[in-house]
C-alpha cells in the first residue's frame, strides 16, 4: 500500500504554539571520556534509584562505578576528577546505553549537566530516549572516538564542540568530523518541538488510517 505522505510535518507546527523543550543548536563544553564498551543503563543508574522522585535520582548517576562499597568516591573514575567537574559532553565507547529501557538513564545525565554523548554506537532505546530529553547522541567512527578519548585523557578539561546545525564535531585537536542524524530528529531538537503535539497535528491522518486498518484487520 502507499502510505500517506507528509513531507514536512514540522511545518504544520508553525500555526500551533506548543509547549516545547529547550532547543539544541550548538554546544561547546568540557568533555569527559569513559573507556568502557557496552555500558548498560543499569550502570548509568542502578535500579534502586528508579521509582524515586527525580531530584532523588541525581546522586544515582554511575553510582556503583563512581563509589566504592563504603560509598567513597573512586579517584580513578573520570567523573570524580576536578578537571571534568563541568563536563557536559560524555565521550563513550561502543554500544553505550544498552540494556534496560529506563529513560532515567538519560534524565539523570541531564540532571548532572550532560547535553551530548559521542560514541561509536548506542543502545537503540537509549538513543531514542536522548531525543525525548533534548540530548544529542552523536555517532562517530570507532577510531575517531578512541582518539577523542585519548585527547581528553591527555589534556583533562579541554572542550569539544557539537554543532547540530552544521552537523559537525570539533575535537580539542581542531579536527572537524561530520556526523549524521535523522533530519526529523534534528528538526525537533533545533526547534525544541514537542513530539506529542506534532503527532496530534496529524490526527486526521491517524484517524483515516485507523478506519482502513480496522476494515483490513477487523479482529484487532
Amino acid at each position, binding site marked *: *500500500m502507499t502510505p500517506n505522505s507528509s513531507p514536512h510535518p514540522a511545518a504544520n507546527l508553525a500555526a500551533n504554539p506548543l509547549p516545547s523543550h529547550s532547543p539544541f543548536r550548538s554546544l561547546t563544553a568540557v568533555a569527559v571520556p569513559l573507556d568502557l564498551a557496552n555500558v548498560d543503563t543499569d*550502570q548509568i543508574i542502578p535500579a*534502586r534509584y528508579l521509582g524515586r522522585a527525580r531530584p532523588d535520582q541525581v546522586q544515582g548517576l554511575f553510582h556503583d562505578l563512581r563509589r566504592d562499597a563504603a560509598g567513597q568516591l573512586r579517584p580513578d573514575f573520570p567523573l570524580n576528577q576536578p578537571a571534568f567537574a563541568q563536563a557536559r559532553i560524555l565521550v563513550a565507547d561502543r554500544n553505550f546505553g544498552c540494556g*534496560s*529501557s529506563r529513560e532515567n538513564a538519560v534524565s539523570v545525565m541531564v540532571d548532572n549537566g550532560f547535553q551530548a554523548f559521542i560514541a561509536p554506537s548506542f*543502545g*537503540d532505546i537509549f538513543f531514542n530516549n536522548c531525543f525525548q530529553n533534548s540530548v544529542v547522541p552523536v555517532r562517530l567512527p570507532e577510531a575517531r572516538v578512541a582518539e577523542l578519548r585519548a585527547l581528553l585523557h591527555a589534556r583533562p578539561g579541554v572542550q569539544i564542540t557539537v554543532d547540530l546545525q552544521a552537523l559537525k564535531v570539533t575535537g580539542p585537536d581542531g579536527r572537524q568530523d561530520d556526523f549524521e542524524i*535523522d533530519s526529523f530528529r534534528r528538526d525537533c531538537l533545533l526547534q525544541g518541538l514537542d513530539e506529542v503535539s506534532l503527532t496530534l497535528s496529524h490526527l486526521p491522518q491517524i484517524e483515516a488510517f485507523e478506519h482502513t486498518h480496522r476494515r483490513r484487520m477487523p479482529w484487532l
Partner: protein
Amino acid sequence: MTDALPSTLFEKIWSPHVVLERDDGYTLLYIDRHLMHDGSAPGFARLDARGIKVRRPAQALATPDHYTSTAGSGLTDIPDPLHRSLVRKIRENADAHGLTAFDIEDDRQGIAHVVGPEQGLTQPGITLVCGDSHTSTHGALGALAFGIGSSEVTHVMATQCLWQRKPQAMRITVDGALRSGVSAKDVILAIIARIGAAGAVGHVIEYAGSAIRSLSIEGRLTLCNMSIEAGGRAGMVAPDDQTFAWMHGRPLAPRAEQWDAALAHWKTLHSDEAARFDREVSLEAAAIEPMLTWGTSPEDAVPITGVVPDPASAPDAAKREAMALSLRYMGLQPGTRMRDIAVDRVFIGSCTNSRIEDLRAAAAVVKGRKAVIPAWVVAGSRPVKHQAEAEGLHHVFREAGLEWREPGCSMCAGMNGDTGLPGQRIASTSNRNFMGRQGRDVRTHLLSPAMAAAAAVTGRFTDVRALG
C-alpha cells in the same frame, strides 16, 4: 504495491502499520497494542499534566510485575511504601483512563511479557510496545514488538503511534537438530556470544531454520526475549501451525469468523523466499552445547564444557581491559573450568524463563534430589503458577528444598528488593548479568532452567547432561 515484491516477515508487518512517511524516511508507525506495568506511572503523569486521556484505552493492558512481592500475593506484602504506591497507581490510572488492568490479586496477573502472550493480547502480525526492553519477547508469535522509554510511552498513550526510522532486517538461521539437554536459552546465549551485545543494533532479527521451527512457542518466547541483549530492536519468528494452535482459544484471541479472517492473514506472515536481508548469520544447531555466562555482558557466554577465558587472548587492549574488569568483578581466574565454579544461590524465573515448560524442565532435574544452596522458583504469572501446582511441580520443588514464590520480575531486575548479597554468585535464568543487576557486587551467571536446577542440587555449575 509492495505485495508484488519479495518481502521479509518484518516488512509484511511494518508496511501496513505506516500512517505516514516523511521524505527523509522517518515514519509515523501505528501501534496495535500497548502493554503497561508498574513502571508506567511516569507516562501517565506526563499525560495527566497535559490534560490528555489515553487515546485508545481498549488497545492497552496493564499488569503489575516489577515491584510486586514474591513473598506474598497482596498489596500489603510489598514492604516499600513507594513501591506499593506504584502498584496502586496502576489501578488508579487504569480507572481514570478507562483501560483494563490486572490487579495484584487478579488471577491473570504476572510479568507483562508472560501475560501478553498468555492472554492472547499478543498476536501474529501486530505492532506491540511496552515501556520495557524485553518487549522483544512477543515477536515469538510473529508480532513486531519492541521496548520504548517513558516519553515514548506517553506518546503512544496520547496518539497510538510512534515516530520510527525503519530498522534494518537481519536473519539468524539455526539449522539442524538441537542436542539433548540443549534449550532455547542455550541457543540465544550461543547467538549473542557469536554476534556480540551490539551485534544486532539497528536491526530487527528474524530467527529462522529448522532448529528454530522445532522450538516450542515457549522456547521461541525465550529466544526472542533476549534479542535486546544482542542489541536487536526486535526479534521475531514467523508464525506457523504451532503458533496458530497455541493462539486458539486464548481469552483475547480472535473468535468464530474473526478467527478465520485472522488465520488467513497470519498464514501470509513469512519471509518470501527471495526476500533480501541486510544481514545474515547462521549457526549449526548440533554445535550448540548448554551455555552459561562468565562475565558481565550477555555476550560473555561459553559452553559448560569450557573455561573462563584469558584476557591475554583478547583481540585488542580495550577488550583486554574490559575482560579483566569483568573477571575482577566476577571474582574469577582465567582458565578455571566452568564446572569447577561454586555457586551460592539459584534464581529460576523472569520474563526469559518462567513459563510452564521452564518450570517442568527445572522440576525434572531436581526431582528426587536435594538443593544444597538456596534456590528460588518464581513463576511468570498466576496462570503459570496454578498450572504448575495442578501438575504438582510445587511439591517437587519444595521436596527438593527450593522455595516456591509468588509471580513477578523478582530477582531479574531486583526492583522489588529481591536481590542477592555482595559477593554472592547466582546461577540465574534471567537475561542480564550486568554489574549490580541483582544487587550491588552480586555476581550473576545466566543459564537455562535445567542448568540452574543442576547448579541448585550440586552447588556448582554442572553439565545437566551428566546428571542423567
